[in-house]
């Protein structure tokens, strides 16, 4: 046993993988999610078994999943991006305006416009944070207001209405492929690509190295600035894509779109096991956290729990997740220390 703790790589690969999965935060959060869905379905079977309930269960989290993936990439580098809600709103409105200006535009193009525009806003954040060495919390708090201000100035009292958007685009918001909503498929593809990159690619691993110890990463010769800017661009681009999803799903975009979603994105990542001080956590966990958050929002009213309690439940989850993390880390440190003594 002590051998295993001190030299985990001596375990057979399969056992090691199994142990990692069993000990992972992703599994814990996933189990909470499954339990929540199960309880809600027992009380109100249409939550899962009705065609519409199934669709909503899958499609509602797709926007937050995108935000949580981007947010994770940034948090892992020991930064944070608070401007994603404003980026989402601004891009959603831009999407509507693009369709108003060019009604015959083939709609898939707006997804690229959303990615590019969001990425551009991400460049602003990334450059300010990486080049000018200002804390991301402050910079992105500033850009949160700047982007929202630009949005308010541009949109004013106007909105984008469902009738401004092409039917084929709106149909995407609720369209399904083999009962899986299209938007969910989109979010899962992004999740798979980013998750694979972060887990295996050099660039992905460097994000973790930077977040674990930025000074060490710099001394080691990693391109810290480039990686951090890259993470912000990814985060902005995904927030932009989320804005296009928002327009497709809700059909109406007013200047309040995406307000407070940055906090939900951070909450999803934290609940999913992403350490707020960087260096650990996975996009899979953040995505499960996002699904859990959105599902709580839909499940509690069905369980007859007052709407005002929902926020308290979300808060308890965040604190619970962080406390659990801390306890597990302490326990593991003690076990490891004891094992090292013995060997």
């Amino acid at each position: 046993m002590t051998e295993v703790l001190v030299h985990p790589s001596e375990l057979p690969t399969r056992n090691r993988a199994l142990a990692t999965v069993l000990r992972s935060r992703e599994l814990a959060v996933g189990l909470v999610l499954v339990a929540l869905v199960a309880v809600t379905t027992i009380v109100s079977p249409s939550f899962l078994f009705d065609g519409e309930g199934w669709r909503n269960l899958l499609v509602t989290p797709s926007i937050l999943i995108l935000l949580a993936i981007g947010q994770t990439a940034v948090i892992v580098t020991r930064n944070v991006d608070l401007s994603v809600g404003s980026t989402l709103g601004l891009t959603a409105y831009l999407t509507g305006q693009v369709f108003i200006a060019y009604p015959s535009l083939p709609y898939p193009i707006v997804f690229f416009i959303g990615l590019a525009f969001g990425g551009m806003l991400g460049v602003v954040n990334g450059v300010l944070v990486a080049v000018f060495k200002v804390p991301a919390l402050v910079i992105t708090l500033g850009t949160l207001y700047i982007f929202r201000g630009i949005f308010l100035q541009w949109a004013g009292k106007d909105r984008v209405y469902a009738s401004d958007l092409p039917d084929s685009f709106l149909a995407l918001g609720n369209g399904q492929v083999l009962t899986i909503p299209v938007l969910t498929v989109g979010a899962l593809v992004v999740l798979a690509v980013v998750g694979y990159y972060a887990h295996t690619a050099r660039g992905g691993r460097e994000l973790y190295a930077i977040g674990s110890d930025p000074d060490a990463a710099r001394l080691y010769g990693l391109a810290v600035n480039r990686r951090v800017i890259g993470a912000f661009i990814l985060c902005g681009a995904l927030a932009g894509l989320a804005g296009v999803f928002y327009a497709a799903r809700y059909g109406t975009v007013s200047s309040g779109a995406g307000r407070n979603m940055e906090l939900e994105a951070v909450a999803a990542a934290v609940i999913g096991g992403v350490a707020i001080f960087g260096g650990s956590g996975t996009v899979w966990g953040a995505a499960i956290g996002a699904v859990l958050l959105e599902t709580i929002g839909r499940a509690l009213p069905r369980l007859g729990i007052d709407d005002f309690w929902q926020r308290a439940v979300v808060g308890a989850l965040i604190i619970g997740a962080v406390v659990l993390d801390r306890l597990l880390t302490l326990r593991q440190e003690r076990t490891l220390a004891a094992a090292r003594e013995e060997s």
Partner: protein
Amino acid sequence: MKRNPQRLAALASLALAATLGFSACGSDDDNGGGGGDGGSDAIVFLPKNLGNPYFDASTTGGERAADEFGGSIEEVGPDEPTAELQVPFIDTAAQQGVGALVVSANDPSALCDSLNQARDAGVKVVTFDSDVEADCRDLFVSQADAAGIAKAQVDLIAEQIDGNGEVAILSAAANATNQNEWIALMEEELAANYPDIELVDTVYGDDDDQKSFDQTEALLSQYPDLEGIISPTTVGISAAARYLSESDAKGEVALTGLGTPNQMREYVENGTVEAFALWNPEELGYLAAYTAHALASGEIEGDEGDTFEAGDLGEYTVGADGVVLLGEPYVFDKSNINDFDF
């Protein structure tokens, strides 16, 4: 990237400039108010801002009224809906000595000094849509009163569900004063006139599209026998309509409330929503023009109880605090929704 921060900074500023560029689009304004020739027939319309379809409609109504009584309407206004920008237009109208000024105020008190100076110069001041304090205008043409708004929505839902069944209300924020006043009046109206309609729940969408959308879903699943939803907020009604339009409940669960034709057009045309209410800005402008004309020509003094004729709309009486009430909210449905653009 470290080797070339300037390029990135340039790209960043380009991105910002591009977004700012979008926001700079706006309509041409008509600074200085143009050449009104004064006299009691000349009426100046000063909406909150130009290029706003809602006020385009009210000015159209005002012009129609002016054609009928033989006066002239001139529309002036700022690009941005702020009170400071309205002041120069008020001063210009006062100097020109026009008969009356019809204003939708961007602030209840900031315009008072200017408006009172204009009144001292003999200009009659009528506010519409958005009032100023009662001592700085002659009359206020109000679009609707709370009781009328509540009754119109209850009547609409009752008609759509044949006066029988469960209904719920999707409101804005739980602490929104006007919403809560309407909800209380709707409850009274339901209790008094529709004993077979049961109000099962009131939920709050916080005037947020997403939250209103999720609340609609929750209502439908929590109350399988729900017959109708009333949403007395423009954000709520369009989010609920978007949800219903993609749901099995489309056409089964009635939806009504307060909405604008542009946001509801899609859902009225595809059969999700039968009818909803709001005041008609064209009628509002029409009545405001007649009110201004009645004051400027000396037909009325603006005291409580004064009556005057307002063309097609019939006779109006000045109420307490110098308020002229347009009347019941206007009902929009498939037959008339395409006549409006706001």
